[in-house]
């Protein structure tokens, strides 16, 4: 029913061969009921995620990128089971999470955790940091002495002091609160962390600190990250694999360099061409692609290819036939009837950039 199929070669599989990926998502669908407006009868549904498949290996970072409403956050929330998927499967280390009892699911949860965008909203303002951090350990039956040790160790890793444990969220800066959110995700020693826009609410200098911290923790603990972001520069910096989403489906996926240096889907190309580069000389000469219009409503997505209403290459076929996510012979997956791989970030070869950079 959807573009992404279980038969297709997925990027994680290419990397890991026969080894079971840590995370294996197949044909994931999540629909939400849409409340009728005044005088509207009957219930309609919006497919926020409309059939998404991907693999994520241990220690790797897969980023889901796309604009508001593309379904990237909903996908992550289905993976860590903050939301229950409507259909499709999410396998964690070979275990289908759908098949688990509530108790087993709760026990598995320690292995996959989540960090949210807004650290202000995701920390309970009436609990001290110490209480917030020990709660998950208590729930999972870790003994208090061990809990204290783990929390101390992680606090020092993220450069917070022991004394901070007695303080409340409002006494911290945004960057510090995000460090606390990261510690909370780490206390259970998970193997996978879903990070939902973890740096987009932060100023650039703080953002750089958090990115560095995430890199260090990944290396130290062998973590896999499912990274959700709209900032394509941050994604380029942090990811091994990248999947570009549009209106609930993956339109292109592959390794970091596949997607950034050799993109083939027109939407990926438009996204990359629109993302600014902090260098005026490059900005003046790089190719520009300005898409017409806005993304259509996911309540009533276009027939065929979902991107066709904004695509400059659309043909009659695009309205009739939904393109399948497959490799058109370029080494990574694209869901487009007319893919053309090219480097749209800069039409010229890499050259050294002057100045103090």
């Amino acid at each position: 029913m959807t573009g992404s199929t279980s038969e297709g070669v997925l990027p994680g599989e290419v990397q890991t061969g026969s080894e079971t990926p840590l995370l294996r998502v197949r044909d994931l669908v999540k629909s939400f009921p849409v409340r009728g407006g005044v005088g509207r009868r009957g219930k309609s549904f919006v497919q926020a995620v409309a059939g998404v498949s991907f693999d994520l290996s241990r220690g790797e970072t897969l980023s889901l990128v796309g604009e508001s409403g593309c379904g990237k956050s909903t996908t992550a929330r289905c993976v860590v089971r903050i939301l229950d998927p409507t259909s499709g499967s999410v396998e964690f280390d070979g275990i289908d999470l759908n098949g688990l009892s509530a108790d087993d699911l709760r026990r598995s949860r320690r292995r996959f955790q989540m960090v949210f965008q807004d650290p202000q909203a995701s920390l309970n303002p009436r609990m001290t940091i110490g209480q917030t951090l020990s709660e998950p350990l208590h729930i999972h039956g870790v003994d208090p002495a061990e809990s204290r040790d783990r929390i101390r160790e992680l606090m020092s890793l993220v450069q917070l002091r022991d004394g901070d444990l007695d303080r409340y969220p409002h006494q911290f800066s945004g960057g510090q609160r995000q460090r606390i959110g990261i510690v909370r995700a780490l206390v259970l020693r998970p193997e996978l962390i879903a990070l939902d826009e973890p740096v987009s609410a932060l100023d650039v200098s703080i953002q750089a600190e958090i990115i560095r911290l995430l890199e260090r923790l990944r290396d130290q603990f062998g973590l896999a990250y499912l990274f959700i972001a709209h900032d394509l520069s941050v994604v380029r910096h942090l990811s091994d694999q990248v999947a570009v989403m549009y209106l609930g489906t993956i339109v292109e996926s592959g390794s970091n360099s596949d997607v950034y240096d050799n993109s083939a889907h027109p939407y990926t190309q438009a996204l990359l061409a629109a993302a600014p580069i902090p260098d005026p000389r490059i900005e003046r000469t790089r190719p520009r692609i300005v898409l017409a219009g806005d993304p259509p409503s996911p309540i009533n997505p276009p027939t065929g290819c979902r991107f066709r209403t904004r695509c400059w290459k659309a043909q009659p076929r695009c309205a009739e036939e939904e393109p399948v996510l497959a490799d058109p012979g370029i080494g990574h997956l694209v869901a487009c009837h007319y893919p053309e791989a090219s480097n749209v970030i800069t039409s010229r070869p890499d050259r050294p950039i002057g100045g103090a950079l």
Partner: protein
Amino acid sequence: MTGPLLSLSGLTVDFSVGDGVVHAVRGVDLDVNHGEVVGLVGESGSGKSVTMLGLLGLLAPNARVGGSALFDGTEILGLTGKPLRALRGGRIGMIFQDPMTSLNPVLTIGRQLAEAIEAHQPTLTGKRVRARVQELLEMVSIPNAAERIAAYPHELSGGMRQRVVIAMALANEPELLIADEPTTALDVTIQAQILDVLADLRQRTNTAMVIITHDLGLVAGVADRVNVMYAGRVVERAEVDEIFHKHQHPYTAGLLRCLPRLDRRGIDLDPIGGAPPRLDRLPEGCAFAPRCRAAIDECLVRDPMLRMVGASVVACHRAPDAVASLTGAGA
């Protein structure tokens, strides 16, 4: 046409809060020439928005604005009542970050645009006003402008709403457009559309613009000159190429080293470290000194003035050696 269109000198904004005073803007000098696009960049709390809101008299009553702001040679600080209203939305147009909160949800966009025109050109006939409304919507490339006139803000997407806000700012052919984070709330493909609209307007109308933003990438693409603000001051000003390639201030260098790049992978991000000072308890000396790797004793006791160094105007005691000295200290 000889002098700058807008000229700020020693602009200050203080907020009285409880028993203290927050020095949000601490003496900003800034010129905007006719037809020029000036970027005002900085992080949260650097004073970039407050500077512009201050000169337009748009701050809360606990704000005190000092210094001088000449618009086309006339002092505009202290203006009140009719002359101030004639300026705002007349010769100076404004665009704010969130188009939803800048539009009235219960009026059609046509009505709101008409209001903006009538407020400044009360003698226009209804017919002329309606024609102008449609013309403005077309100018910002709103499709089916004739039909959209009757739409309410909630019926439009974020990008379309921001176009309406831009159209409103342009209603009376301003000489200066002040855009405060005009694309921050928008997705990147929509941001590209809005920047396109602004670039197009600039070509056709030669309107000067001040773009206030935290996004250095955006500034690289749109600005002619850039002012970098830190803790209520402009710390460096230069042509856009110089800001990115020959900057003299360690803070400018620090900001650029924090940025992940779309066009290159595997660069070493080099965070600045520390946090900006509290604006009610500023350190003596340079406000950036506590975070600065190039700081020397003098920086901690004496506040540097802006001076010309190379192609920049920079407030740093150690320029022109400051940035070079960082390269060794990094990593």
